[in-house]
């Protein structure tokens, strides 16, 4: 149960890092045309297409003393695990948020402007409420992604019992030690968490794409 508790904490913090940038990037990509848009889109999706271990190595290089050394003290802590999970969840959140924003008819936003609402009011009273279901779905899927993160986490957070031993890392350790029962138990636990998140996300995102329609 320790591993589940650590996993939930790590995933919550990962979501805390990744949700605002993810939703912001999603909005930017859905609503703004700018130079280098494709590059930004590519960079956002990068963690999805390179091996997670490579992302972990990148983080290690940014944080650790061998590289830029931005924050060597966080390596092999729960913070490092949540950073790694957050980076891996970000592309998913950004992509889902982009789809949620794209499902809102931009003519509705124009109409809202033309009846006298300011840009901020349009975002707050029109765009966000209409995209809300999709955005919550994006966060739930991001959370599930963070919950199962392994490759990047093990590089920057290692396998510190009671500190960074999440469900995914725990399964790996149990297999290494030849503890079939323990591995199975943790695997079933992660499957239950993932399934719950998937069901919640699917309920929330159902009907997405009609967000702007009457």
């Amino acid at each position, binding site marked *: 149960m320790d591993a589940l508790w650590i996993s939930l904490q790590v995933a919550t913090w990962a979501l805390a890092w990744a949700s605002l940038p993810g939703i912001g990037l999603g909005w930017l990509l859905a609503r703004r045309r700018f130079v280098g848009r494709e590059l930004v889109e590519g960079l956002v999706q990068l963690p999805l297409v390179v091996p997670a271990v490579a992302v972990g190595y990148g983080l290690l290089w940014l944080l650790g003393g061998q590289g830029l050394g931005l924050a060597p003290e966080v390596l092999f802590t729960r913070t490092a695990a949540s950073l790694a999970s957050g980076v891996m969840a970000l592309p998913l959140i950004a992509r889902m948020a982009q789809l949620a924003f794209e499902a809102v*008819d931009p003519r509705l936003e*124009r109409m809202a402007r*033309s009846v*006298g609402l300011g840009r901020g009011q349009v975002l707050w009273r029109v765009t966000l409420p209409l995209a809300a279901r999709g955005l919550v779905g994006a966060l739930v899927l991001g959370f599930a992604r963070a919950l199962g993160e392994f490759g990047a986490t093990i590089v920057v957070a290692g396998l510190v019992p009671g500190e960074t031993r999440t469900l995914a890392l725990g399964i790996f350790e149990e297999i290494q030690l030849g503890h079939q029962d323990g591995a199975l138990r943790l695997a079933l636990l992660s499957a239950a968490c993932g399934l719950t998140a998937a069901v919640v996300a699917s309920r929330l995102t159902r009907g997405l794409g009609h967000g702007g329609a009457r």
Partner: protein
Amino acid sequence: MSWAVDVRLEQGGLALDWRLATQARWVGVLGASGLGKTSLLEALLGWRGAHVGLAGPVGYLPQDALLMPHWTVAEHFARLAAPPLALDRAEVFEPLGLTELMARPARRLSGGEARRVALARAILVAGNAGTLILDEPLEALDRLRRVRTLGLLLALKARTDVRVVVVSHRADELALLCDVVQHLTATGDQRSMGAPATPELALAREGIHENRLLGEVVDVAGDAATLRVGAAAIIVPSQDLVVGARGVFGLRGDDVLLGLADPGRVSARNKLTGTVRTLRPSGTYVELGVDLGAFDLSTHLTHSAVADLELKPGAPVHLFFKTRSVRLLALLPPGVPDGSV
């Protein structure tokens, strides 16, 4: 100059250059559906194509209403920036039948209801001195709602300085509302906008020669109502009418019969006497203007009928027409002066 804008549209293979420069405040655009009228209006709004930059507040009634699906009807009116308007909100909401819809979320309105809400929103946003852009404002309205909505728009025209572009595929609606009517036509992908025409000319092109009568209902008995038009009394169908109601009525020139003597007992309820004022040949017909004292009526006769009856200016004539020939076009709300419609 009420209008001085240049709308250029090049989109999806569709091209149009519309220079709108006119003293007229209410401009009608007549055109069949599928010509890209919505694109044209959204180009005028600056939503697509080169920015036109209309000054002042602009109220827009789009074909698809564009209500905020998660707001109630009331929220649509509570949250808009509304400049001064000579009409009370109740005067706008009542003819459109919005009062009972106020608490309803917009996503649960029917298509027609949503468009009525969107029309009221556009009117309130434009205020007394703004711009109104209306895409088929009378589409999907039942008969009574249509005549009341036309009355509301005529009241708006009489009591405010709002300038309007209204698009419709019905010449009779545009002729009733607008100062000029322009015809949108297509040749392949090229769209062209005809020169501004008077409402009468726009109607004549559609083969409609209609007299307009402004009258007040003085009596309703069974299926007939008595209308006072100037000093004359005219019998009309009583449908939708109550005593005291004022409306604009249409009477087609083709429905008016003319004789040199009183026809005696005939089924037509309306018999009026007057004198020929004008005789104007138009194609195979002669357009005859008759002075009835209280008002003028025009009717169309063949050349042979004119010759046979030896009609000349000043000749005394009898006109008669059926009750059902007089159609209610617009039911006016109170406060519209007689001279304004």
